[in-house]
């Protein structure tokens, strides 16, 4: 192999590899592009049951219910327009409270219930999950008043 040819081969190999990477990424991102859902997104276009998605929104006031087994919670995530019922078995994050933001990884089951595998809540006053920025946190809070009454 001539010198010029070897360098050319290497450059071509590199290009092929990078283009391959781009195609692979594009292929893998196809499913991922719709990875993040708000309750409205789910209402608009329901993902198939069993597909891994990430759900983000606010925990509706008064919606957290603890099950008898002591480790499962059921709650409603809302974004001001739509609501989604979620169930989670596990230790809830430290700042998981009604009215706070939450990001959950999980899947929809056959009955339209979102089964969360991990929950991410607002950690402290400085931290909001990136996906939740700009979502109205006050929407749906009228329930507090009914609770107080």
């Amino acid at each position, binding site marked *: 192999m001539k010198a*010029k040819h070897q*360098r050319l081969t290497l450059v071509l190999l590199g290009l092929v590899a990078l283009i391959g990477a781009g195609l692979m990424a594009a292929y893998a*991102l196809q499913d991922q592009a719709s990875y993040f859902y708000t309750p409205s997104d789910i209402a608009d276009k329901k993902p198939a049951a069993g597909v891994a998605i990430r759900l983000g929104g606010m925990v509706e006031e008064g919606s957290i219910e603890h099950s008898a087994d002591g480790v499962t919670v059921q709650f409603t995530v809302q974004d001001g327009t739509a609501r989604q019922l979620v169930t989670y078995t596990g*230790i809830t994050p*430290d700042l998981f409270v009604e009215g706070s933001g939450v990001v959950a990884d999980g899947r929809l089951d056959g009955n339209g219930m979102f089964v969360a595998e991990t929950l991410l809540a607002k950690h402290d006053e400085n*931290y909001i999950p990136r996906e939740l920025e700009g979502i109205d946190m006050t929407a749906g809070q009228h329930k507090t008043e009914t609770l107080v009454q």
Partner: protein
Amino acid sequence: MIAETGLIALWLAAALTLLQFALGAIGLRAERDDYYAAIRPVAVAQGVFVTLSFVLLIWLFLRSDMSVKLVAMNSASVKPLLYKFAGTWGNHEGSMLLWVTVMGLAGAFIALFERSLQKRTLVATLAAQAFISLGFYAFLLVSSNPFERLFPVPAEGQGLNPLLQDPGLAFHPPTLYFGYVGLSVAFSFAVGAMITRDVGPAFAKAMRPWVLGAWIFLTLGITAGSYWAYYELGWGGWWFWDPVENASLMPWLAATALLHSVTVLATRDGLRAWTLMLAVVAFSMSMIGTFLVRSGILTSVHAFAVDPERGSFILALLAIYIGGAMALFALRVGTVKEGSRFELVSREGALVANNLLLSVILALVFIGTLYPLLVEAVTGEKLSVGPPYFNLATGPLALLLVAAMAAGPLLRWRRDNPKTLLNRISIPLLVAAASLFALVIFTTSMSILSLLGLALAAGVAVASFAPLWRRNLRRTPLHTYGMVLAHFGVAVALVGMASESSFTEERLVAAKPGDEITVNKWKLQFGAIEPVAGPNWTALEARMTAQYGGGVLHEITPQNRMFAAAQTQTSEAALLTRWNGQLYVVLGDGDSEGRWQVRVWWKPFVPLIWYGGILIALGGLLAMIGRLRRGFQQRKQREFAEAML
């Protein structure tokens, strides 16, 4: 007074950096020997002054001088001393000052000890190094002065995020910074060599210790960061594909590729242009990593500073440095002569495969990390790219890379015979096949990736020692041992990863004191819940004992901590490490019936992930010591020969 002295030292250091750059730039143009001679002491003085400035900032933090804004915002007098110390760099300004300090020290070090490089290339390197530092000095002095005073002086500081109050995290950021800065030095060498058109083995040998050093620090930093996330977040996972984690992984991938290509350049004078390109990419990745973490663009636990002005400043620096380097590369790559050639089946060929695979993995992580940010910037639509993408995209390639790693060291330079390779690698192949066979028979429901991972790890563990086979062990150079150890470390880490993902057992219960919880062969006895207090927190602590089979009783105490200063709660997982795995216990909330949520994991062999990381770093250290010692000996011999003439 201390703050003012610190600021003056910082200004002086910045002025010296400007001088260092000017001496280099003008000196090279005019070919002035006196300028060349002056640049070394200037670089040393710059290092001294910037270090002084950083030491004074540490001093202010240790004294809890609340009249300094940075201290008041980020520290508290009630904090333990270690965290006051670490608080120096646990914030935006301090971490930037740490960055220039390490750069300044690196410049001083090169000026003092680098002797093998051509004089003009050295001068160009120091000038490039000064040019990079200048941007950071401007950043510090214009928009983020760490010594700014605060009036009126508050009585108490505003503390630090309690999640970050942890010995692991105290030293995690500086470790990564040493890595990033080491890559910036490698980048300066590459720019220096491009400017003087001196790309060859001598340049590669001068650059290699810096790449190795940076790579060791990055390896340690990523390992420590992963372990921190594992025990501090209480989720039981060890890698989350969080953008901040990716920000440290991308420079590591580039540095790993660079480390291997620079060896080809130093040993065989091949892959010249490619090595230059990788040096540029590696530094770009550390700048992008810093930008992602520091600009607050990610709004994540790690982004302490949320300030668009700073973000734009770093972005501008990013554009200037990366753009400039790419332009220089494009201009000069044509004049870089073709290196020596090699056959496809050869050590070089395997290293090219290593480099291609690493670059593709890097590109995939890069796209996955930046794509959501790009989409959000352009369309305003929010989306996230999560673990499913990263695992799918990088997992198979990583396994391929590990397979190449087993074969590479067994190949000869320049040209080899595929048949003899098959001979040499037959035993590792048998081991891998036997492991695969055993795993398929004896285990159920393992994922294909974990299955292949474990089998491959077994083969690689054997193959990594093959380079020592039938060699005189006393005459084998130290850097060969380093390579063996690092490659073995990869196999060890891979066993940990595959085992964690396949064999972890988990129990989640609401338990009352007095209850027993079993997972695998472990029996946990839940004794009581007691309140405890630390220096600046109070906690509820679960007293438990754990017993494996009929073995010894171990006490474990998972906690739920409340931090007074920040009104924040964190859960402290209890970990019990045994030779064959780790018991991981998290205490959750109590309910009205007196039950407490307890989550228990038994993770077989999970510590191997981090032991592997440490082995990899140790391998790097051995290689570095070996290379430095050999370089030193060769210089001695040369000087001796010259003296004899």
